[in-house]
């Protein structure tokens, strides 16, 4: 079997675009999380909704910041 070159799972040229979009989505979800935290009262708050929003926001922010690092040349 001849050696097969290894490439990155995502083409390098997509990194800036991906980071912009994922960070934008992540920040929007983060904003909605904090708006929910600030506006809902202690009784009417649902823990599941908070954790879910937080998880979705952190996935988008996590991948967004990873791609931001990669796009700016910090290859982790």
């Amino acid at each position, binding site marked *: *079997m*001849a*050696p097969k070159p290894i*490439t990155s799972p995502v083409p390098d040229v997509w990194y800036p675009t991906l980071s912009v979009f994922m960070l934008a989505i992540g920040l929007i979800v983060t904003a909605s999380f904090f708006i929910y935290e600030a506006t809902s*009262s202690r009784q009417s708050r649902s823990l599941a909704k908070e*954790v879910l929003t937080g998880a979705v926001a*952190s996935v988008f922010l996590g991948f967004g*910041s990873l791609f931001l690092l990669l796009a700016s040349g910090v290859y982790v």
Partner: protein
Amino acid sequence: MRVQWKMGFRFDLLVFTVALLSSPVLSDLILSKVDRRIDLTSQIVRITSTLKVENAGSESVSQVLLAFPDLQVKDLAYLSAKPTEGKGKAKRSDVTLPVEAANPKGMPSALTFYAVSLPKALGKGDSYTFDVLAVFTHALRPFPEKITQADIQLVVFQDSAYYLSPYAVKVQSLSVKLPEARIESYTKLENTKIHGSEIKYGPYENLPSFSYSPIVVHFESNQPFAVAQELVREIEISHWGNVQVTEHYNLFHGGAQSKGEFSRLDYQARPTIRGASAFRYLVAKLPPRAHSVYYRDEIGNISTSHLWGDSKKTELLIEPRFPLFGGWKTTFTIGYGLPLKDFLFQSEGKRFINITFGSPMNELVIDNLIVKVVLPEGCRDISVSAPFPVNQWEETKVSHLDIVGRPVVVLQKSNVVPEHNQFFQVHYKFNKLSMLREPFMLISGFFFLFVAGIIYMHVDMSISKSSASYLVRLQWDEVQAATQQIRNIIDRCLTTHDKLEASLRDLSRTGDVQACKSARKAADVLLKELSKELKPLLSFLQSSSVAGQILPKVEELVSKEKELQEKVMVKHSTVVDCYEKKTGLRDVENRVASQQQKITALKREVENLLELIDEI
């Protein structure tokens, strides 16, 4: 035999004894033809010898010995043998013959031997031709050893005019190629010819084994004598698509020492005369598609560099901050990124990086080269295959987003020349899922932030749980929650009203009385339910002690809404009645007009109340 060579000064050359050995030679090989070419055009001395071995004995021989005087061996950086190309002998030039150190008995102690293994044993009368390339560093001795800025640099090279060999040599010749500059002097033997910048010795015929005749060439050489005392190359692999190479150079000019003062003015005005021995730039040949190239030192970026490239290579020309004269030192760092797919490969379940060992700099001698291959976190079963012996150990390096640190393979070799710029491989096993470590760390970092927010909002931080103000606040929270629920109910009532209005509009358009009636029925049911839900909340507010401020407004809101509800119902039934009795449109409008006014007024009041409650 002690050789002295006079030219106004004396050289202690090689202390060397050519004892016409009484001990028998190992095998009955003879060298029927030896052709040596010494290349002195750069600071690195390359001696290429084409040897034709012939077996004159009866036993078959598979090894040929090469002899080097100890004095030369300490400078020997690279030695390789390969079959001579062409004439149908061996056409593949990438085949090399194995060379290993040998220690035959009964040989002079001042000599070091290497044995070349032939591809097949030579039988009686057989012959074989191969090339031996020996590369020496620091073999050119500057003479005089100290020069001023204005002087040219003269160097001395010593070797033997005869090929030093444990075998008898039938025919041999030697040519010494010098840089295109002045030749101060050279040893004249019989059959010495000079042709331009090339000196030819020989041919000499039928010389016994261990023949030696020292020659000395003294000539001008202003080639850059760039020597890296230490070069640390760090090759960092990221599976996200990059191989980052960082090279830390600790460079000095290995030629004649500079003495006296340095005048920048003289140098700037006439660099070729006042500074001929200095070198001002270096050229590095980087692999193609190198990107993000930088050149800096401790102070910061060094702007005097040029980069150009094509599909085959990238060339980087760097100028140190100052021209380097003999003995002057400089340190700097260059770095560049390379695309992953050019260097990282997968084969048989293992990944391996295939990258060159030496420095990309042209004609650079490296006294101590350290190559560090930084693999991604989570690599296992690491093994190295290098084309020549190197010292090797492992380290770990903690870098961006690491938990336990990345495994680092360190390869160390001293006395490295451009010939060592060969590919080496580091094999390792890697699980693809390990790539998700970095994003997972970032994700969990952000997630902890959110969890902290959630905990902060949920945890009751007050110290005294029984104080009056605390209890009031708890109650106020409950009141707020109840008010919020009431608000939601009122909102739903208002949307139901809107729906009824919409059904009326549909009626005026289609005249479908039944549909309108069913909409009314649904609305009735819904409103009844909502008012049921409203009751406990209201009674809770009434019983609460802290709701005093908000209660009247809420009650007013509820009553107004009820009123509005009634009016809407009345209007709805009126209109439906009119349609059923088929009264004229104008009549309907007249009847409804007054009701409509009240409804609008009430609606406005309800909205105002809602805003007020929100503010509280």
